[in-house]
């Protein structure tokens, strides 16, 4: 286990290094820069500003300067949000995105797996068809359509929940969490349903039935592992994506998370912020993939030796 962790952590750092390098140079290939706005700036002032941010140095030197900063956990200043460092921005927004994201992953996993199993056990029943309809809606209708509809109905018409914003009450969290989890509920329930149906056809399930292991025990004690393994594999990358926030959700519900920076930073050519977000997301991806692999190894002994 320790050897596995050291190896995966080493691989992760290498991956992150490659990601940082690639992003740094590809980002600079894009035309424009942080100060190329409509407003005319005199060349003297521009040169001055660029010197402040070391943008006048050769690209390689800038890269080395950045990497040297990163290894000391200095991610540089944001160019767009003056007076704030990249670390300040991410640390202040992350708790909101993590909270919404954590609950969305929980809700999506529990609901998705439950719906999937019920659908597989009672195929072509009302439950199965309802789960299918939810899945189709969740996958086919974009969040930016569903979320405003939910606001109109639950917040404005029924007045059960606030329209948006971050407050002290859990009630502020309900709509964003539901909206963020819906597509994942849809995907996870389909994944679980297919895997459960396939698992129930396995020979070892027949063996269990032949041993006189009755209905419910076969499902929970024998078939469940096979049915959730694909979900575990899916949850690794999905969790990283969900907990780092969603620009759509955060914009619609006016939440101060970091999701919006994914798009804004790139559009503004806020180079250090783009890099910071890339490292954060890449780090989460690597960590959650390792966690998913550990969980998979715990569930499936055949994976452990790989």
């Amino acid at each position, binding site marked *: 286990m320790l050897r596995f962790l050291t190896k995966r952590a080493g691989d992760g750092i290498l991956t992150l290094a490659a990601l940082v390098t690639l992003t740094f140079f590809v980002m600079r290939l894009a035309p424009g820069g942080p100060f190329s706005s409509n407003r005319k700036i005199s060349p003297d002032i521009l040169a001055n500003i660029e010197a402040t941010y070391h943008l006048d140095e050769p690209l390689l030197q800038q890269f080395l300067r950045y990497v040297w900063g990163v290894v000391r956990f200095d991610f540089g200043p944001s160019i767009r949000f003056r007076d704030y460092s990249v670390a300040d921005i991410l640390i202040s927004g992350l708790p909101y995105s993590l909270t919404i994201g954590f609950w969305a992953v929980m809700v999506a996993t529990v609901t998705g797996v439950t719906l999937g199993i019920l659908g597989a056990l009672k195929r072509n029943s009302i439950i199965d068809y309802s789960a299918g309809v939810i899945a189709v809606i969740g996958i086919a209708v974009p969040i930016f359509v569903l979320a405003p509809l939910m606001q109109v109905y639950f917040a404005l018409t029924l007045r059960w929940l606030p329209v948006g914003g971050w407050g002290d009450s859990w009630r502020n969290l309900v709509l964003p969490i539901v909206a963020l989890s819906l597509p994942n509920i849809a995907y996870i329930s389909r994944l679980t349903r297919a895997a459960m149906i396939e698992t129930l056809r396995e020979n070892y399930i027949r*063996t269990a039935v*032949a041993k006189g292991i009755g209905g419910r025990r076969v499902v929970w004690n024998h078939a469940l592992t096979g049915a959730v393994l694909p979900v575990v594999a899916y949850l690794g990358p999905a969790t990283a994506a969900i907990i780092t926030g969603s620009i759509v959700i955060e914009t619609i519900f006016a939440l101060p998370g970091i999701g919006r920076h994914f798009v804004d930073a790139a559009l503004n050519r806020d180079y250090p912020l783009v890099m910071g977000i890339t490292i954060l997301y890449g780090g989460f991806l690597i960590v959650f993939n390792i966690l998913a692999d550990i969980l998979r190894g715990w569930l499936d002994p055949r994976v452990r030796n790989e």
Partner: protein
Amino acid sequence: MPLIPMTDSLLRVRDLSVRFRLPEGEVTAVDHVSFDVAPGEVLGIVGESGSGKSQILFSLMGLLAGNGRVSGAAHFAGQDLLAMSPRALDHVRGVAMSMIFQDPMTSLSPYKRVGDQLAEGLIVHKGLSRRDAGREAVRMLDRVRIPDAARRARSYPHEFSGGMRQRVMIAMALLVKPRLLLADEPTTALDVTIQAQIIDILAELAREIGTAIIFVTHDLGVVARLCDRVIVLYGGRIMEEGPAAPLFAAPAHPYAKGLLHATPRIAAPLTPRLETIAGAPRAGGAMLPGCPFAPRCDQRIDICQTTPPPLKAIAPGRLAACHLTGETA
């Protein structure tokens, strides 16, 4: 049917039919089959692929595929297996009737320790504690000659070879000391060198426990070695039935003759080609009005294609379904 002995049988199967509903119509896999198994007896059911031999076992165990329908009766220790509630059937499967399958590689759960898979039946059906059940499991693994059983009980199936896994399956099936064991071609998927070992272990343990066996196979050598009585099945019907030794010495039905003739023998003089039965085995389709073997039979007469031959006695304890053999008894 006075021809079949009615005395103290453990399993009494009467008019068992299995039909499958397929998109192209209904297919009869087993057609009005009747037979008995005495306590401790080893009955072999032989036949080519598609003769319905495995479906007999699956129907008794309640394991038919979803599109399968069964009719008839199968009294096991006095109760009809085919008319039982699922709960009662679970109990019978748990304590009195076990089954081992053709493919040991996929018949054990890859996610559970071998010892736990064995112990589960004892815990659920015999109320043993985890510890006692675990100890019983190790003892049984030892008896199927798995070396270092106590340690191996904590291993997972993928750490076992095919032959070892089939031993685990045998241990699991016999752990509850069943009165009847259904064995569905348990050696087909194994190396020839291991087949004999598995058969020996199975036969020895079953004799010790007093378990009766229905052994389904197409391997006549195994049947000759193991079985007291043999049923030869073709097209879902019994062609011939009788004690193993006389049946092998002098088969009465043309199909049984052909089957024996087609078995290669190492000791026999070399022939340029392996013997076969002409034609292809029946695979489903509509039932023929006459004898199912008639299209391939080299001795058929007109009546064979119009009237199904009844199963009748040809010698004490021997039955055959052929229009040609009835009169000789």
